[in-house]
């Protein structure tokens, strides 16, 4: 039932995902995506009208166990990782900032 993914769709999705694909990769990905989506189409055999979507395991557990993802910690100031240690791992940084190629033209 799904429409076939065209080469143009692969290029558009790659653009959205900030992936650069070479021409042979675009063709390969088109073939693979169509194969996988063909398999995923089986889901349409199921009538899911009225079934709530499940984003997190805790949602469906309700009161059965103390749910995850609802555990809020006390809102107090705690030390965080030292900035120098974080910036040391960046490909390019000065002592306060991450550096990136110029984004604003004068």
């Amino acid at each position, binding site marked *: 039932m*799904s429409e076939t*993914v065209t080469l143009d*769709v*692969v290029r558009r*999705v790659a653009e*959205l*995902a*900030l*992936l*650069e*694909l070479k021409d042979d*990769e675009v063709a*390969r*990905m088109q073939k*693979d*995506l169509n*194969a*996988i*989506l063909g*398999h*995923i189409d*089986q*889901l*349409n*055999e*199921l009538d*899911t009208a009225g*079934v*709530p*979507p*499940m*984003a*997190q*395991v*805790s949602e*469906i*557990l309700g009161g*059965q*166990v*103390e*749910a*995850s*993802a609802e*555990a*809020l*910690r006390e809102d107090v100031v*705690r030390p965080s*990782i*030292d900035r120098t*240690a*974080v910036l040391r*791992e*960046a*490909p*390019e940084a000065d002592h306060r900032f*991450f550096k*990136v*190629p*110029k*984004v604003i033209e004068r």
Partner: protein
Amino acid sequence: MMNLETLSIDQARAALTSGETTATALAESHYARIAQEDGKINSYLSLAKDRALAQASKIDALVKAGDPLPPLAGVPLGIKDVLTMVGSPATAGSKILEGYHPPYDCTAVAKLEAAGAVLLGKLNCDEFAMGSSNENSAYGPVHNPRALDRVPGGSSGGSAAAVAAGFCVASLGTDTGGSIRQPAAFCGVTGLLPTWGRVSRYGLIAFASSLDRIGPFTRNVKDAATLLGVMAGSDIMDATASHTPVNDYVAESQKPVAGLKIGVPEEYFGEGLDPEIRAAVEKSIADLKAAGCEIKKISLPHTRYAIPTYYVIATAEASSNLSRFDGVRFGLRDKSAATLTGMYRQTRDAGFGAEVKRRILLGTYALSAGYYDAYYKKAQQVRTLLTRDFLSAFADVDAIVTPMTPTPAFKLGEKTDDPVAMYLADVYTVAASLAGICGVSVPCGNTKDGLPIGVQILGKHFAEGMALRVAQAVENAQK
């Protein structure tokens, strides 16, 4: 001379307290074995000798002073390279994180070390934990120690192989769609998938956050229970780590199983199941019956939809999680691009492998305008149905027993050209991942060619003690 291939946590502890060995000697003998043998397995990506030996000498000082020893005193462990450890690289099996040294410890790893464990180093895996064979690592595939021309399974292939090969007593892996349980079965070791939320994920490089879990690989069920007890619990650094009380998993795992109700779902024994695996799993079910369990046939009717559901949800979440790898804050940057967007794109092109790109594209497509309802929302609804299957089954049974994999470990290169065939290898693992329930992968025999076979014991949410208890009975019947 100690046998490093079979050494358990209890044995290591006994050898340490009796003075038969020291924590330092134990770590050194593992490093010597790794140096000699890991060339043909490729399980370790980096060794943490400084940190490991400093910890070992602390433990040796405790022994010498006659002080009480923590539960994992001197036990050498390996850590999957998607978990952070100060002083070691964290590559996640990807070129895009080459050279990255995370400035903080993963909570689970820090808890193990605080309990006395000696962290030997970081273990190979599929890139960003995406794969079922460990052939997607940018640092080369891992070979199955039981048959070098075969895969160890994935994505935690290095973690399973290192335990099987005697390169650590136990290890940590992660499981998003089967990445602990399937490699455990392929390598003939025990693997534990804790309930989603049971172990903090702080310091786990995220793949699919509603599915990712950290768990141990061990040589027996009791060791898995011991490691879970150390790692489980809430964490101020991870709001998804549950406050549900932590049980005494070792005590629970050693209880007798007589009177327990075991569900056997018909959907897990259909077409495509290797006859030798079927026979071994049926033998384990008969063993449980002989131990006094009541065996009940059950149905999990939506099982066949688990793989398509999983590959929508996991890739959608991955496309979001992996957007942080852009050449700005860590790892690789392609410095040839003049613009910011060009830098992002060229860095990601150079840094990501084919499977990661494939999954990012699929996930981005499933979330894109016009397809969101047809794919992502639909998959989330089917996820509800799959979870309801398990919840109603667990109203009648204490645990569910299934085969772990449809086939034994396959040959390297056998499935690399066909992503759908590779995804179908996850047929018995992904439903439990989507439902968030816990499970144990236990060895239950070998094929006539000597390849390990695993059986899966599933327990309901936060019932790790029950799953481990049934797993222990399966293990006992192997002896």
